[in-house]
């Protein structure tokens, strides 16, 4: 069997032998060889045609006769071969794809080998088509995965589709209560989008939106003119509507319109139902995922915003300033918190608090929300800050989620009442928090340890109470350990410390409350070496009224008076 092919392997030699044999009149002993060569040639799958110098066919095997209908011995070779400019040509004869190779001989004769490459070419074409399809779908997958929001995803869908699948592509996304959003892109036109109602959509599109899954449905072009935003005349046949399958419910519908030249812009990409189906599936999945993500992001953002630090109220007779920098800065929330609740009227006390829930990030932030809400409710029932902290302690212990979730808080909570002279009367209760700093007139800084025990860890934990009197212009500064434990400085490891903080505030007695808070924030930020830091919060309570010009401003620039908690439970500091 193999011998069938063997002579063809070097067909030109055989062909030349045949021509030579014929020239010699096929006489004598060579007659046997000639007959053998002819039989071998006839079994060969490659068509063999020999022409003389005049282009007249002198010999052809059976394959040659079959592949080139109209070939006659003694006639001029058929046109495509006769007119060939090169020694190798591709031709289509009777729906078969052929390649023909010419071998020229010195005497002007020529031999053609003709092969039927229809199947080979078909396999090659389908391989290229498959490759183009795979590339397109991979590109689509990569691009569709880029965004986690439905709008950019829908834009990516129409851009991809109008680039490769159609002249114009429109995606329609379902909204609430029959509202729909559409996104359109044409191969040569600018992308557009808008909103409409599901009832104004062409029937098949509305059906696809409702999840009526049909085949890819041809739609009358004029129905889609408005949606496609062009004059319908410019679009060719077969507008299509594809449902985009979502996660349970449909993610939307894709409308494709072909232009007058329906060929794909992407080389080798054959647009068929299989490709459209695969694209629709990917687009639907991406849109559904983006939809779910966007909804979760919206929910998370709403919850997060409920935990943001409050806008400080403006309260007659007192000023507030605050600074906040969470450890996880992109979240804008953390375990530190402050709050100010204005009194009902001028004579009423105003409640202020600053604290630090142990831990960081979301978990801690959620706890700050609970603490702040508890305080807001409890302050209406309990005017005394120390009693309020005791109630808060009980509340937190009761609502603790379990042994694994020990979230205590260090807190300073106070009430401020304006004095007739413009100063402030503060009652401050301590729940194991850092000392407060008091900016006195003249630039002196007092350190007031309030004491007490952390809130939310132990039943019946002792709470301490202090009274602080602020003269007009004086401030009480509360801060969290994010300030004092901030690491940096010359060696990058030194903590900012209470002493440095006090020194920073010395002489700042004429600054407004907001500027004092800002100063601490700025300097802590500068002190911090790159890297992790804890949540940072500062709250400044200030008695308004310009502080009297400091008599000994220069001399009193750096006094730090510390009052340590060895003193009785209640004490007035003025």
């Amino acid at each position, binding site marked *: 069997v193999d011998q069938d092919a063997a002579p063809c392997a070097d067909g030109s030699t055989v062909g030349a032998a045949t021509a030579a044999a014929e020239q010699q009149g096929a006489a004598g002993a060579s007659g046997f060889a000639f007959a053998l060569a002819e039989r071998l040639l006839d079994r060969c799958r490659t068509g063999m045609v020999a022409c003389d110098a005049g282009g007249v066919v002198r010999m052809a095997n059976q394959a040659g006769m079959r592949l080139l209908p109209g070939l006659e011995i003694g006639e001029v070779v058929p046109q495509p071969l006769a007119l060939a400019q090169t020694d190798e040509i591709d031709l289509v004869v009777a729906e078969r794809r052929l390649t023909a190779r010419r071998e020229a001989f010195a005497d002007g004769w020529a031999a053609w080998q003709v092969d039927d490459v229809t199947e080979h070419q078909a396999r090659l074409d389908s391989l290229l088509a498959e490759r183009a399809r795979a590339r397109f779908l991979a590109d689509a997958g990569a691009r569709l995965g880029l965004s986690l929001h439905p709008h950019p995803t829908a834009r990516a869908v129409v851009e991809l589709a109008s680039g490769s699948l159609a002249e114009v592509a429109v995606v329609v996304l379902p909204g609430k209560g029959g509202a729909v959003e559409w996104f359109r892109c044409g191969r040569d036109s600018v992308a557009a989008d808008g909103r409409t109602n599901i009832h104004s959509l062409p029937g098949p599109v509305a059906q696809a939106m409702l999840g009526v899954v049909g085949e890819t449905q041809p739609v009358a072009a004029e129905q889609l003119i408005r949606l496609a935003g062009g004059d319908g005349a410019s679009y060719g046949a077969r507008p299509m509507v594809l449902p985009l399958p979502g996660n349970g419910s449909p993610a939307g519908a894709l409308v494709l319109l072909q232009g007058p030249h329906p060929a794909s812009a992407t080389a080798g990409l054959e647009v068929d139902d299989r490709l459209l189906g695969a694209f629709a599936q990917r687009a639907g999945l991406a849109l559904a995922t983006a939809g779910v993500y966007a909804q979760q992001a919206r929910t998370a953002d709403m919850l997060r915003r409920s935990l943001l630090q409050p806008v400080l109220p403006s309260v007659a007779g007192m000023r507030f300033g605050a600074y906040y920098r969470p450890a996880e800065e992109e979240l804008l929330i953390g375990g530190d918190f402050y709050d100010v609740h204005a009194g009902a009227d001028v004579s009423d006390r105003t409640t202020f608090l600053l604290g630090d829930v142990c831990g960081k990030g979301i978990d801690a932030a959620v706890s700050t929300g609970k603490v702040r809400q508890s305080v807001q409710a409890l302050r209406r029932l309990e005017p005394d800050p120390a009693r309020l902290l005791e109630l808060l302690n009980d509340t937190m212990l009761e609502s603790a989620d379990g042994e694994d979730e020990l979230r205590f808080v260090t807190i300073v909570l106070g009430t401020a009442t304006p004095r007739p002279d413009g100063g402030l009367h503060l009652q401050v209760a301590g729940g194991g*928090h850092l000392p407060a700093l008091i900016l006195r007139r003249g630039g002196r800084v007092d350190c007031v*340890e309030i004491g007490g025990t952390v809130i939310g860890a132990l039943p019946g934990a002792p709470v301490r109470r202090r009274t602080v009197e602020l003269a007009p212009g004086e401030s009480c500064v509360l801060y969290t350990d994010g300030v004092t434990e901030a*690491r940096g400085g010359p060696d*990058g490891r030194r903590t900012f410390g209470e002493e*440095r903080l006090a020194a*920073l505030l010395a002489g700042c007695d004429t600054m407004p409350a907001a500027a004092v808070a800002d100063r601490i924030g700025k300097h802590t930020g500068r*002190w*911090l*070496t790159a890297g992790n830091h*804890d949540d940072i919060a500062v709250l400044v309570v200030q008695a308004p009224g310009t502080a009297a010009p400091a008599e000994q401003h220069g001399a009193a620039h750096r006094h730090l008076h510390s009052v340590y908690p060895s003193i009785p439970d209640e004490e007035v500091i003025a």
Partner: protein
Amino acid sequence: VTAVPATDGGQGPDHHDTGPSRELPEMLRVEPITDGLALSGELTYVTADQLAQQLLDRITAAHPSVVLDASDLTFCDSAGLSVLVRAYRQAHGHGGEVRLRGASRGLRRTLELTGLHVLFGSTQGRREVGDGRGETA
């Protein structure tokens, strides 16, 4: 203290501390000793869970008390305190106690500020070494 030091804080051209020493502070070593655990390094939000597991597993009805040797503990934040309080509550529930040995000045100060020092029968015997916490008034 002669100047407000924050003005040069961390911005100096010659700070050479962004190297490996910045990575080390997050480390905590917990080693068993006869009657409890010895801690060295930093007890923080990052390392607290590591200690919680070992410490809480150790406090049982049969062995309700534990000693924590904090001689080499250089830093403890609120998450660290939270572990100590959980240990206290667990020990207390079994009628035992958590004793803290060799707490640094910084840790003692933190415990006093938070009012938690009363929970841990501190045993003395801290060798006072600089703990790098920058209390350089």
